[in-house]
């Protein structure tokens, strides 16, 4: 069950999965997929995350695309954990991604983990505007009607911490869509400073639930 919110003139749906749906534009946006995270950690430190996070992330993305049938998909940066992760993606996973991309406009917005162009097709942009709204990876405090990611915001409700959207009248910050990504609690001054009083935190989970942003 999604949560409907407005940003400027537009009505947007925060999906329980952490994706953002814009029905009027047939647009789906996700941020911080961090595909290939365990492979990168394994390369660097021999770390021990199970290798399924890429598949788990793709499964959720597949389900969201199937449910919303978007004409445009925006990946809001940090889609891959690093450039090597995009190149060393498991063959099956790469095919899966290609299948999801087929028949729709696919925009990779650059993030701080994957700054350069990628070998996977789709278009690559530093930021992208649709109508009154702008999509970029890291929020720009001076901007209006902006949708970004990067911070992996999280909030607690009824004793459980969950990734969340942060929304006020000026901007929307998306949660990290990838599995096994850490996060920043809403109470963090960075986030409190970015968001206006009265901002909402919309928690992901079985359904999307809005609460006043904890500060």
């Amino acid at each position, binding site marked *: 069950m999604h949560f409907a919110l407005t940003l400027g003139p537009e009505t947007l749906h925060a999906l329980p999965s952490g994706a953002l749906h814009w029905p009027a534009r047939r647009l789906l946006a996700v941020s911080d997929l961090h595909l290939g995270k365990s492979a990168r950690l394994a390369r660097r*430190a*021999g*770390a*021990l*995350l199970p*290798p399924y996070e890429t598949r788990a992330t793709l499964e959720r993305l597949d389900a969201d695309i199937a449910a919303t049938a978007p004409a445009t998909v925006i990946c809001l940066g940090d889609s891959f954990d690093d450039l090597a992760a995009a190149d060393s993606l498991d063959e099956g996973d790469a095919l899966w991604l290609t299948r999801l991309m087929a028949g729709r406009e696919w925009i990779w917005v650059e993030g701080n983990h994957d700054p350069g162009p990628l070998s996977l097709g789709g278009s690559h942009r530093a930021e992208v505007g649709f109508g009154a709204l702008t999509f970029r990876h890291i929020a720009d405090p001076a901007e209006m009607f902006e949708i970004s990611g990067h911070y992996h915001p999280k909030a607690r*409700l*009824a004793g*459980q911490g969950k990734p969340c959207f942060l929304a006020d009248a000026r901007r929307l910050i998306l949660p990290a869509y990838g599995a096994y990504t850490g996060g920043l609690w809403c109470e963090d001054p960075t986030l409190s400073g970015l968001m206006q009083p*009265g901002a*909402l935190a919309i*928690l992901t*989970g*079985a*359904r999307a*639930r*809005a*609460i*006043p942003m904890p500060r």
Partner: protein
Amino acid sequence: MVPLPAPLSRWFAAQAWALHPHQQAMLERASAASTLLIAPTGGGKTLAGFLPTLAELAQNPAPGLHTLYISPLKALTADIRRNLRRPIEGAGLAIRVEDRTGDTSATARKRQRADPPHILLTTPESLALLLSYEDAGKVFGGLQRVIVDELHALAESKRGDQLTLLLARLQSLSPGLRRAGLSATVEDPPALARFLAPGTQVLLADPGPDPDISMLETPQAPPWSGGGGRHAIPEILKQIKAHRTTLIFHNTRAQAELFFHDLWLSNDEGLPIGIHHGSLAREQREKVEAAMAEGRLRAVVCTGSLDLGIDWGDVDLVIQVGAPKNVKRLVQRIGRANHRYNAPSKALLVPANRFEVVECRAALDAVRDRTLDGEPRGPGSRDVLCLHILMTACAGPFDPDALYREIATAGPYHDISRLDFDRTLDFVATGGYALRAYDRWQRLKQTGPLWHLRDPRTAAVIRQNLGTIVDSEMMKVRLRGRGQPLGEVEESFASSLTPGDTFLMAGQIVRYEGLNELTVEVTRSAAKDPRVAVYSGTKFATSTLLADRILQIFQQEDWPGLPAHTAGWLALQRQVSRLPDRDSLLLESFPHEGREHLCIYGFAGRNAQQTLGLLVTKQMEEQGLDPLGFVATDYATLIWGLSPVTDPAPLFEVETLRQGLETWLSSNALMKRTFRNVAIVAGLIERSHHGRRKTGRQATFSSDILYDTLRRYDPGHLLLQITRDEAMRGLIDFSRIEGLLARTEGRIDLRRLDRVTPLSAPLFLEPSKVPIEGQAREKLADAAAKALMQAAGLV
């Protein structure tokens, strides 16, 4: 009476040694095909086993292998070799004794096969290797006797299955072979005798005097829950001072570490005390063992790692901290004190919490009555059979009919059907239906009537993988910048650490710094309290025998045998509710802090109570009772949620529970882990390839993929069946849930109470609560979100 040959009897006389009656009896029965000697620790069992060999070789030291000695521990073989040297050299006998284990050098191994000693000391794994060579017939063709030491310990695991298959092989190579099994006290000697060989005669030695065993009295009552026995440290220190050497047994490594740490903080006199458990580096353990043997230690804090084996000097007191969980193991541990025959062993039990006080009382009664627990041994594992068939093929072409007949002479495989054997053989040959297309699993081929390796060069790789012990995935712990490893932790524990976390290792608090390749790097920490020490989760479940005895104690009118604090606790429970009994299943339902609680007193042991918690909460979820979580102990499961249970009968129908189990099993990490072990033992996955050992994680990757593949394309695959059987027996322990339901026959006594009861109270303090991610969480989150939005004026 069969006399000893003159040189031996002269030497015995010179030592002023007289044979114990059971040692003489072994000599009398030297020609029997198979004998099982059951004798208490310190009874000279091993010498009894070797006497017929020494007597025969004293008279006729013809070259060639005469006797094979098999022990579960490498360390034991080295010890036995030293001990045998005394009578052999003392009596001037020309008998050659050598050992052969994983530590034996390659040149020595080669020479042993070309020119075997009279007596060869080895382990089941090394014997399997020896039998996998083409010349096995030549080496073992003239073998006269085989002695299996600590048979009770071997029989408890898959190593025992492998052992009996190896014995069957030896018997085929040398039909006149005689077997001698040596065992500590067991609950069912005839069963162990059948395990050793059909028609084995049992020889029971005098069990010796009753042990001097009691519960340690402490001025401070044990805590309501938890483990470790730290409340008893002052009294335990007094006991250490009053004895020469004390062994302090704990049930888990983590508890041993925590206890050792606190013991040191109170050890004002600086008594020399060491720690010994399976997670410590071998060098660390050997240091403690040496200090112990030289009598330099006053106490050793230890775990099951000291259950078996060598005489540890002058131990005169054994302390068991925490409920013993199992009477047989307790008796064997008590035997570690006073390793002299006909002297009573002295032992103290230290209950770590109130429930354990009752369990310790039950254990004391059981030891006094000389009743022992033990589950009947199941049939032999089929993965071990796979391994055995592979090993047989390495040694040369074999006839399937002859191999089937041979295998059926091994105790655990006595009842195997030809169909099952053929299916197992088919799996070994081809990998089974789903894997038929893969070359690497096409291993055997039939030419005429004989099966043989498809590619003889694969024998070397198969030999490297011939074991039934699968290491859990361990990582070495090392002080940063220094070479010496401190010990090992499980990979899953290591991956839960973040830099800065502190934990206990080898009795000191260390700080986790990071991973370096496959090593956990730590520094010394000045912190007072470690964060955790949860490596090694071996948690034994309380045995059925002890659980039944606890329920009997509950039925007493009063409890003169229990300390006043515990007797008062039980009396209060009887007053406000009732005490559980054997004939019905007591459930208590009560509200507490805004949640509804259900306490299930199943007394089915930790693993089964845990499984029961999973299955019952799943039913509750389906019935809309909104469970939030549960916690399980050896005695009870406590479930909390949003709605009270008023009609419990449907929750405890065995068919419903079994169906729930099937669904749960199919998507379970536990099954994957079990599958990994099974697949490694059965030779489907290689542990090492041409000497390069795979890390546990590598093996896990490929075993997980195989598991998913088989489940999808070949759900009836032999290895999936074995996996399921094994998981059901082990951690899931479903048979004890079935036993509980059969015993109570639907007699469920649900008591509705207005508050927490005395018996359920300790459960609230238990750690490792399991949350249920269900509708209840959603409802709570909805309510919380709504309240917050209203308070902020946003709705």
